[in-house]
């Protein structure tokens, strides 16, 4: 956390979260949420310094292959098996402003829908050259990119015959801890999206569509990898023009 982004530090509190846009805690179609959802109301509070601030990670934490899942776990000279894709986009806030210098982490199954995790028991094979994790830090315009293998769909024990659509998990930091977000990216045109109970925890179809990355033909690299674009929006923050001043502190 030694480096800092080039952005001018902002200290306004964040816009209140629209919790009707996000999935509710209790969403019984996704069975595990039944016992893991608070039943009491959340205690609402305008952001304090504890939420307005947040950790920032410098580029010094990154290795050369951190944003290349095709190679970052592969043996020298080898690569992961599957459809090669590039995923790229921008991290913006609700005001449409880029969020530079923030860490994104990604994780996913391999081309056959198999995760490299000891609790995973799906019979599809492990790819010896695919780990499934990566990370990147946004540039001054909020841009990030990584290359990977398009993940496969996989079955999970929820309903009798539930399958997850192909997806990539994203963890995103902002400039304040209140912007912390974990979400999932889906792929344009996947019919499984509309059958999934986890996708279905989101009440508004427009919000679901915000998680679907379009095929980006313009950025597809001929004879190499197709591209998908996935922009991420974090909470905006207020200007501090009329905020109470923290005098005497």
């Amino acid at each position, binding site marked *: 956390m030694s480096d800092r982004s080039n952005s001018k*530090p902002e*200290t306004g509190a964040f816009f209140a*979260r629209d919790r009707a*846009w996000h*999935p*509710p805690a209790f969403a019984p179609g*996704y069975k*595990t*949420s*039944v*016992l*893991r959802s*608070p*039943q*009491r109301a*959340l*205690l609402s*509070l*305008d*952001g*304090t310094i*504890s939420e307005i601030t947040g*950790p920032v990670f410098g580029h010094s*934490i990154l*290795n050369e292959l*951190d944003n290349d899942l095709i190679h970052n*776990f592969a043996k020298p000279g080898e690569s992961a098996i599957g459809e090669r894709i590039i995923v790229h986009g921008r991290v913006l806030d*609700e*005001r449409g402003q880029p969020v530079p210098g923030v860490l994104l*982490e990604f*994780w996913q199954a391999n081309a056959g829908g198999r*995760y*490299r*995790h*000891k*609790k*995973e028991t799906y019979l599809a094979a492990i790819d010896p050259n695919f*780990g*499934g*994790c*990566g990370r990147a830090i946004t540039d001054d315009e909020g841009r990030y990119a990584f290359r990977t293998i398009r993940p496969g769909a996989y079955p999970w024990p929820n309903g009798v015959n539930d399958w997850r659509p192909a997806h990539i*998990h994203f*963890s995103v930091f902002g*400039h*304040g801890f209140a912007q912390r*977000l*974990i*979400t*999932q990216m889906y792929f344009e045109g996947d019919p499984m999206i509309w059958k999934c109970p986890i*996708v279905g925890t*989101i009440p508004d179809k427009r*919000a*679901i569509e*915000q*998680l679907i990355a379009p095929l980006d033909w313009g950025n597809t690299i001929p004879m190499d990898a197709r591209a998908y674009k996935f922009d991420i*929006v974090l909470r*905006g923050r207020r200007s501090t023009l009329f905020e*109470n001043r923290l*005098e005497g*502190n």
Partner: protein
Amino acid sequence: MVQDLGYLKETPSQTAGPYVHIGLTPNYSEIGGVYETDLGSVMVNDKTLGERITVTGKVIDGAGAPVKDAVLEIWQADSAGLYNSPSELRGTADPNFTGWGRCPTNSTEGVFRFETIKPGRLPFKDGRKMAPHITVWIVARGINIGLHTRMYFPEEAAANAEDPLLARIEHRDRLATLIAAKEGSVYTFDIHLQGDKETVFLDI
């Protein structure tokens, strides 16, 4: 028509799922050789100022069972009450303290553990002081949007009594859910997701 405010909508949250460790703690998940260490696994070094403490506990579901696949992150001020963040404009935080940690609940007992320091007091927006506290954020399979809460310190009764956030809790018997148990330098902070002992979670 009035002018368009032009705001974007925040990207909706989704659960971190059962394999969150692949992305956030790959070395813990036995995916070696990609990252040197798991981010957030060390918060302090030999030069860090302040009182060393251990924060440990479990995340417990609505049936009383420990959640063995959660990941917790904590965010806190240094011993002088300053955050190691570009948005911290009150002074320069201890460079030997990150203020941020990440730890999975283990797959055997569902226990998390952070080696950190006790934070200093902090100003509320109106100049009142907040009691020392640690912000805690929890994600897991079955949790659709990360849960924020705070851990407070039991020996800080006077500071806790004037803390603006604790003062907002209408049902006073619920305050106890935010105050850790202390034994020596070890603080135990169990988080109950649901039920009679449900922890107070925050919309902040």
